[in-house]
């Protein structure tokens, strides 16, 4: 999470760097869009920080919404409208809903979770800082004097994005879809294996109840409940995908 925020601030710093580098654009007289970009970047960074430091699990997920939404606003400010809405659609609309679904399934408590802390805190921080530094370095080095003309024709409109994606970047795009396919197949394999293992013990009990199915015995209900639970879980797992 902090990586995303770091990337956002990296973008923000890049803008300033390019401001100084580009002769035509002064550093001391930033435009409104640049100021907004920087402020939204700060908000995004703050939300990302809270996401990883808060002890309340669901609050972390909701702060993640703020961070991801902030990133979408940054894309908008850079005229990449299509990417911005896809960001909201995929991350806020699906990934966070999935996260919240998981948190609710595991009954995330209201208030602080005592075990919502990791012993790997310092290692994680080191990795995050190294990754952020790498990203900042790469981005700054790659886009040193590039300047996005915000007033001209939108450089990130749906048409422009589609054309560059399917003309210049088809191979990476297809490689990514193969990666997703691999993940999909992997998920199916994992869920089938898990199902086969978990369903082997109750077979006997089900066979036992199967001998007297019509008896409305109260002892049967928990077992029926189990059976139903197993029936719905693949659907839920599918939903999760």
């Amino acid at each position, binding site marked *: 999470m902090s990586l995303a925020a770091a990337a956002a601030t990296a973008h923000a710093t890049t803008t300033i760097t390019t401001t100084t580098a580009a002769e035509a654009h002064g550093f001391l007289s930033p435009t409104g869009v640049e100021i907004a970009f920087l402020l939204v970047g700060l908000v995004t960074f703050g939300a990302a920080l809270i996401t990883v430091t808060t002890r309340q699990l669901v609050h972390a997920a*909701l702060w993640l919404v703020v961070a991801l939404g902030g990133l979408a606003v940054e894309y908008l400010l850079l005229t990449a*409208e299509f990417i911005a809405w896809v960001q909201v659609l995929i991350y806020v609309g699906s990934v966070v809903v999935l996260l919240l679904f998981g948190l609710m399934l595991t009954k995330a408590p209201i208030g602080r979770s005592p075990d919502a802390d990791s012993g790997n805190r310092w290692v994680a921080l080191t990795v995050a800082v190294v990754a952020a530094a790498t990203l900042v370095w790469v981005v700054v080095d790659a886009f040193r004097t590039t300047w996005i003309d915000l007033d001209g024709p939108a450089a990130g409109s749906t048409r422009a994005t589609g054309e560059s994606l399917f003309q210049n970047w088809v191979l990476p795009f297809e490689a990514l879809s193969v990666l997703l396919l691999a993940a999909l197949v992997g998920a199916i394999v994992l869920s089938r294996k898990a199902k086969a293992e978990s369903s082997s013990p109750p077979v006997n009990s089900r066979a036992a109840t199967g001998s007297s199915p019509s008896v409305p015995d109260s002892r049967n209900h928990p077992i029926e409940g189990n059976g139903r639970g197993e029936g719905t879980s693949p659907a839920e797992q599918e939903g999760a995908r």
Partner: protein
Amino acid sequence: MNDALDVTLRLLIVFVVFLTFPLIIGQTEHKVMAHMQGRLGPMYAGGFHGWAQLVADGVKFAQKEDVVPAGADRRIFQLAPAVALLPYLLVLLAIPIGPSEGAVGEVIDAGIFFVLAVMGVGVLGSLMAGWASANKFSLLGGLRTAAQLLAYELPMLLTAASVAMAAGTVSLPGILDAFEWWWLPWQIVGAIVFFVAGLAELQRPPFDMPVADSEIIFGAYTEYTGLRFALFLLAEYAGIVVLCGLTTVLFLGGWHGPWGADGLGWVWTLLKTAVLAFIVIWLRVTYPRLREDQLQKLSWTLLVPLSLAQIALTGVVKVVIQ
């Protein structure tokens, strides 16, 4: 007209539509449901056929005490209704009702994506409410909401993508400009899938398992009272306006009609939206609630394959006619 005034006027109109249309649909629902069940429905408030019933309801809601349960997560509990309601206001901004430049709140380049993305955010409100209420019925409602959203978001996106393929653009006015009458039979499967998935996303009957008032007592909204509860209800009806408007724009040709296309386009849009809203109400009176496993099965084994088939059909026809 200068720009600031123009923008203010547009926002104001959209806001007024946002406040009145859901109430009109709510009142229609009262009356239509009543007559379908052999009753009269509200007859007293306001005099003429109880037209002011929902205004009276609003006043009643505003007078009620605003209770936050002791065990609840206060801030998230209080924030949830706003998160549920505001996205629909934003979506209304992007729906064009007429052919001219002035008949849409704001032209958005990636309109379909904007609309679907923002509608998805609205469900976060129900999830927040379900978790923050500290109530097991609410939690169950929240879980069901999330499971339902995950299942029905996909067919909705796929069918919207099918229309975008047919039109060659993702902007809503652009799609309407490209519309021809024979798109109706061509995209009819997509239209039905989109509408059904949208109903499920709004948790309207027969897809109201997450709120199921007779078993989990209104699910995520169990603990809400007064104005905040009214906001959730308003969100539901605003959602109906948005869904019917979107289905009209994407699949039914929006302002196109057999005659009177110039000048009267907005009448066609409103008429089609109203007919769809009537169908939404009709379905509520007609169909029993689907069970959770039936809900999931309907989406994954019927709607998703149908929407994939629709995309294939769209692609084939598109290549053939070019």
